């Protein structure tokens, strides 16, 4: 599903963000990216949906070399990749339902699809009774559920999560992890960058460890270490 071949990414005037990284992630896998801040986790994720371009190496998503994707096809790539962030990136002037339907609206989904999908996905993430609330009326965990609903409502092949539990207390974080696990069980490949030792150690999934931009460990059923 995702394949990196000797990928290097360097930011101007700063350190190398990713150095000769290679990895192969199969469909339906759940992968943790671990490592200290600045080790290249976010860059790894940003390369996958073409928010960044690699300086060297090739990246394949669903069998296609995304380096050869013309600009106008990038949106189509992104429709197959959901994104979840530490800071949720919800739109404060829209309700839960509107935040979720926004994602469908802007890719031109017809209204009847939106009408049926949005309540279903809100139910799935456990916010069936809060669809008319605004983000600032929700707890952090609930807001992250909205953002997951938004990322998943289009049934993407891949879900990228950049520190999704970073702002949450451990109990709330566990709820989010159970949700991501359920999404993974539907066949969606999940790649999650995290520092959260407890989560990685309890989930026991594949772990890719980055250090100064290099992959230093790739271990199935790994721990944080």
């Amino acid at each position, binding site marked *: 599903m995702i394949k990196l071949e000797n990928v290097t990414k360097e930011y101007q005037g700063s350190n190398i963000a990713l150095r000769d990284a290679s990895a192969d992630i199969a469909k339906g896998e759940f992968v943790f990216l671990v490592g200290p801040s600045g080790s290249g986790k976010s860059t790894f994720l940003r390369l996958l949906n073409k928010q960044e371009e690699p300086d060297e190496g090739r990246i394949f998503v669903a069998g296609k070399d995304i380096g050869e994707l013309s600009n106008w096809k990038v*949106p189509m790539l992104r429709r197959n990749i959901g994104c979840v962030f530490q800071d949720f990136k919800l739109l404060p002037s829209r309700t839960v339902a509107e935040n979720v339907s926004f994602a469908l609206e802007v890719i031109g989904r017809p209204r009847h699809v939106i009408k049926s999908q949005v309540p279903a996905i809100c139910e799935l993430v456990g916010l069936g009774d809060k669809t008319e609330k605004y983000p600032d009326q929700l707890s952090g965990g609930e807001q992250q559920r909205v953002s997951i609903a938004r990322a998943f409502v289009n049934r993407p092949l891949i879900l990228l999560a950049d520190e999704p539990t970073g702002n949450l207390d451990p109990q709330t974080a566990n709820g989010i992890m159970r949700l991501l696990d359920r999404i993974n069980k539907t066949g969606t490949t999940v790649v999650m960058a995290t520092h959260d030792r407890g989560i990685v150690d309890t989930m026991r999934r594949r772990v890719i460890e980055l250090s100064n931009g290099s992959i230093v460990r790739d271990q199935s059923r790994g721990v944080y270490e």
Partner: protein
Amino acid sequence: MAIRMDYVARETGNNLIRNPSLTIATVLTVAVSLALLGAALVIQQGVSGLNGSFEDDVEFIVWMVNDADQEQVASVDSALASSPGVKDHRFVNQAETYAEFESFWKESPEVLDTVSPGDLPTSFRVVPEIPDLAVVESLGAEFEGQPGVLKVDFAADYIKRLNQFSSAASLTMSIAAFASALASSLLMYNTIRTALFARRREVEVMRLVGATNWFIRIPFMLEGLIQGLVGAMFSAIGVWALARTIRDVIFKSGFGLFDSFALTNSQLLPIAIILLVSGAAIGALGSGVAVTRYLDA
């Protein structure tokens, strides 16, 4: 993928009312710059309408005052007939002048209503032997001071003066129009950038969930387009008012050199269309560039 109209209409509307002061500033700048362009076009139109008064070989026109008596007309007539420099001359009475006037203003009954044949001056159209400017001017000058003569208009001089006036005026206006069109494009660019900044979270989410660039762009470009069109509408109204004022001034002060600057409504229509198209272009271009730069960043 169909772009849903209700989405586009809602987003564009929200953008327009989100920052009213900036919207108004943009509309006004567009209006002012296009009004200058419109004024330049009015002048050009006026000049191009000029040549009608001078047909064929007529090199100068001796205009008689309105209340010139038969004797004065006869004396000018005989002076022209006896002058060795004059090849041919023709008296144009009030009825003929009115007929000329009528054909010139045939599209504007509102103008014709205000004028009767009695208001118009009679004239002699003169064809000289030698159509050289210096010779013609000294010949015409002989008639300038005669009793009953209002003035002598020389074709060459008349056209020369007008062309000078019009090229100077329309050059100035065109430069001013260009400069302010540039200013309004830049302001448009900034307005849209501000609108984009206000909506940067939305734009970021749109990009992440895979909205196409055009989908993101269209509401912003439409916003610029509407601002440009509204500005152009104001400028068209301004130019129309200007043309009305010129016409009134010309008709109140009698007829003469600048008659053809009084434009009819049907002459103003193409100018209005040019203004609207320019406004739309300024709006769509300024905002299109702003959005594209933002999207590619």
